[in-house]
């Protein structure tokens, strides 16, 4: 038990916290603080998102007319979709949840002061800047980049555009990702609070851990592949280009051996965020904790065995194709299990429909569509028809944008008050959520129809029969774009001018909410009190502080009795 002034010292917004304990640009540029690095990452990936999103809007505008609405050559269109894909995948989605949100939250969830290797963490951010810079240098070099984000050979070897710059950029970004993954693995293994067992970890940690395994094991393969591509392009060593005795399908195997697990680098942390949001905003213990935790690990491992489903039409052997199809279907189970568990968590909860929860619910909706449409692509005969059409484009956007971007926004809104100590405008937040949701569906749902009717992807012009669907899609893209801009605006305004909020405005129970908002430079000024991250009854409202704190810290005379404990 602590007295009132001690409570204030612990939980009220402090005079000095990690944002203002040191000043000047150097205190940010050379910081080793995981929270500051996370914020810099967040700013970085937001810029990448807006940039690549602008490319997408240019594409969609061009597709307003079937023979191209903008005075843009086909070459320029090809460069636009390549840069859109490459920047979105390598510079935005892969680092988005783990490196930005994960960096801020993971050590605090463990009750640790920082990640295991703070310098490596900063290096990871600078590698991100260098890698992204090199990707963009491909544009500035004057040659552009027109291979598609997949760099398929032999076109990538023959084209005159800046492939070497871009692949080297992706190579460097790979190291940035490996650094983050390695850091998280070691941090979770060695820096958990005393007594914090694996099954007392929030599910976000489990998903970040599973992600980190993929980052560390799969990303080196991408690095090797890209280096071999550069070697083939410059020295003609004869590995990927049939002209020199190589095999283009081999490149596809190498590439997808990384890039399929990379899909799970994108979606697993997002699922972790959703597990947190659903339980906090329904104030219910997460249903089937161990099933969700193990399904993350199962997805991470199965994710290594399904890369061939990107290559059903590539000319790989038919027996191999059959096997990959079978394994692909098994991935559906752990994903479905997660969705069912989230629904069961809502049951009999006390559901608060604020901005983060709205994003979490739209995640379930959109990821549901994204996941179910994966079944059409996992089945062999239908995939032959749908492969490389707009159906695939719609499917992976539902997973990556409807999934990861929605979860990222939900997560940022959830932890924003923790980072800045200020609250956002919930109404405008929900408006932005609705715009993102509606705009997203309008953009990508028509693409399912176009795809199954036979519209190939990566086309700068198309047959007039698809005109109406393309126009709907273009309208949707602008709604989606403005929705994201609004969300960013709401968040920036909140960080500067938002009303002060207490340490724990949402009655969340995981450890990061036991520090003040914004947290101290060392995260906690006291040893955080280890409790179950999903035992929301352990938190009580303190009138004086205007926020939720642990029962043990609260004034015993005002603490309501414990509710009937439920077995779990």
């Amino acid at each position, binding site marked *: 038990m602590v007295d009132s002034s001690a409570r204030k010292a612990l939980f009220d917004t402090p005079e000095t916290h990690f944002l203002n304990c040191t000043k000047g640009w150097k205190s940010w540029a050379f910081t080793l603080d995981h929270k500051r690095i996370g914020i810099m990452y967040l700013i970085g990936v937001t810029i990448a998102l807006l940039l690549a999103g602008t490319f997408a809007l240019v594409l969609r505008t061009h597709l307003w007319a*079937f023979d*191209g609405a903008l005075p843009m*050559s*086909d070459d320029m269109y090809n460069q636009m979709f390549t840069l859109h894909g490459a920047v979105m995948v390598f510079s935005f989605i892969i680092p988005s949840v783990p490196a930005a949100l994960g960096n801020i939250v993971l050590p605090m969830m463990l009750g640790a002061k920082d990640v295991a290797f703070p310098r490596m963490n900063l290096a990871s951010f600078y590698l991100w800047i260098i890698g992204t810079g090199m990707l963009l240098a491909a544009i500035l070099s004057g040659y552009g980049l027109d*291979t598609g984000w997949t760099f398929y*050979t*032999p*076109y990538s070897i023959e084209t005159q555009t800046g492939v070497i710059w871009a692949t080297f950029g992706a190579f460097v970004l790979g190291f940035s990702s490996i650094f983050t993954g390695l850091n998280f693995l070691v941090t979770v293994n060695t820096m958990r609070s005393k007594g914090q067992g694996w099954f007392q970890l929030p599910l976000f940690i489990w998903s970040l851990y599973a992600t980190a395994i993929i980052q560390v094991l799969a990303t080196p393969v991408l690095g090797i592949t890209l280096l071999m591509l550069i070697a083939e392009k410059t020295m003609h060593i004869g590995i990927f280009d049939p002209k020199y005795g*190589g*095999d*283009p399908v081999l490149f596809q195997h190498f590439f997808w051996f990384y890039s399929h697990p990379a899909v799970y680098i994108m979606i697993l942390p997002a699922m972790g965020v959703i597990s947190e949001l659903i339980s906090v905003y329904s104030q219910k213990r997460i*249903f089937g*904790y*161990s099933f969700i935790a193990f399904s993350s690990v199962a997805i991470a491992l199965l994710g290594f065995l399904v890369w061939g489903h990107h290559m059903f*039409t590539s*000319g790989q052997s*038919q027996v191999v*194709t059959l096997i990959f199809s079978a394994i692909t279907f*098994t991935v559906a*189970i752990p994903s*479905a299990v997660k969705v069912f568990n989230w*629904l069961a968590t*809502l*049951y*009999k*909860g*006390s559901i608060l429909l604020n901005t983060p929860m709205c994003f979490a*619910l739209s995640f*379930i909706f959109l990821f549901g569509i994204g996941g*179910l449409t994966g*079944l*059409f692509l*996992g089945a*062999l*005969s*239908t*995939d*032959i*028809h749908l*492969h*490389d059409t707009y159906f695939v484009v719609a499917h992976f956007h539902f997973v990556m944008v409807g999934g990861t971007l929605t979860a990222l926004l939900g997560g940022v809104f959830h932890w924003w008050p923790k980072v800045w100590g200020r609250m956002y405008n919930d109404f405008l937040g929900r408006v932005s959520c609705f715009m993102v949701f509606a705009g997203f569906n*309008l953009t990508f749902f028509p693409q399912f*129809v176009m795809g*199954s*009717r*036979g519209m*190939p992807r*990566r*086309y700068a*012009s*198309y*047959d*007039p*029969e698809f*005109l*109406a669907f393309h*126009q709907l899609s273009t309208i949707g893209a602008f709604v989606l774009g403005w929705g994201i801009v609004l969300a960013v605006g709401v968040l920036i305004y909140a960080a500067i001018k938002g009303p002060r909020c207490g340490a724990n405005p949402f009655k969340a129970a995981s450890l990061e909410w036991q520090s003040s908002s914004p947290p101290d430079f060392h995260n906690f000024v006291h040893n955080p009190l280890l409790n179950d991250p999903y035992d*929301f009854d352990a938190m009580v409202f303190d009138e004086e502080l205007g926020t939720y704190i642990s029962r043990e810290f609260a004034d015993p005379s005002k603490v309501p009795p414990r509710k*009937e404990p439920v*077995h779990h």
Partner: protein
Amino acid sequence: MNWQLPLMLAQATEKAKDNLEELRARTEAVSIDGTTVPDHALERSAEFSSNPFATDYWFPEQASEFASRVDFLYMAIFWISLVFFVAIVGVMVYFCIKYRRKGDVIDPQPSTSHNTAIEILWSVLPSILLVWMFYVGAEDFFNMRVPREDSEEILVTAKQFGWVFTYPDGDQSPELHLVEGQPASLIMQSEDVLHSFYVPAFRQKMDIVPGRYTYAYIEPSKTGQYRLSCNEYCGSGHSKMKTMAEVHKSAQARKENTEWIEAEKPMWENGEHIYQIQCSGCHKVDGTKATGPALNMIWGTEENVNNGEKVMVDRAYVQKSIWEPNADIVDGYSPKMNSFKGILDQQDINRVISYLQYLKAKENFDGAEEDFYKEHPEFSKDVLEGDMDESVPTAVEGGAKADAPSVPAANAEEAQPAAATAVAVEEPVAKAPVVEAPADAAVEAPTLEAPAVETPALEAPAAEAPAVEAPALEAPTE
């Protein structure tokens, strides 16, 4: 969401355009030249069902035997997914309404947070459905991939940015022509980068990989014209690498569409056919710049090339740029063309040249269609390539010697005379060469003396003109 909306929009747009001809012109501008746009591509929207739960809302018509199987599995997964999706979202929305927080009171009711039985149940039940989907998909896949014994073999050559289909009888065409009920096994190869063969109406797709053969199998079951497109990104002209798959009633009807080089056609028409199959992916004939320069006005002009010199587009240069495309590139273009050595022989090049001459003459002529042949009898449909049988081989030899690509320096000097040689050699032969000669003279003329363009053309029959000019030009070669 109202899914009638796209249809309404489409109809509105159709109306606004009103002019189908204009629509066709705009569509053809984004297709490979000389390839007919299937009418479907223009007016399909109305053919689709407006009911999103019907198969023909999601799919184009079924034109192959296995199309209905693919559609069946697709719709089966569609319904299974729909049931699951409605259940998930329904439960979610119901819970969110029923258990939403009222005011500031947080009162979650106790309920279990773990139930192994239900967890196992909802893991295993969907698995059974997944096994079924996998099984049906795999079975149909093998039906789509393993050809019947009696299928005909069609060779497919894909390249940036066009298609060549070679039939068992040696005919070639830039579109795929099939016979209803006759299964076809496509043996596919690529000349440059990855491509992919895709005909939505057949539900068939296969990548075409350079350095190896890939195979696709089709059992066409319905006559008609269908879209055929490249589905694997292949470079700047990817979105224009589309053509048509046509299913004919009989082998005879197909033959009419695939007959290729023939003696009973004018030389320029054979040249046009070669152009359509081999060149049209990158070179336009309507004056627009594509991957390569437009060809309609290029014959006889002087072009700046990338080594700073000027080059006359004559026989020597045309041959060189087909066989050694990266030697003298016209300014403003990049080295993207592959050599056609071994694909187009000397005779084919002569046909292409004849087509270039025809195009140029056509561009310079503004009058009625029938007057064109009066003024340029050498292009008339009566002047058949077969009649020139004796002259052509001679021309080939003469041309080949003079244009020997290994001596580029000599080339430039001899360009002019080489062309003249061709003219001269053709001269003695009775009908064709006499009429062909003035054409050459006419297009060569501007370089010698600009006003001369008109001269031979005006002296219509012009039997004399070449006789006077040709020997004079011939002199330097000897």
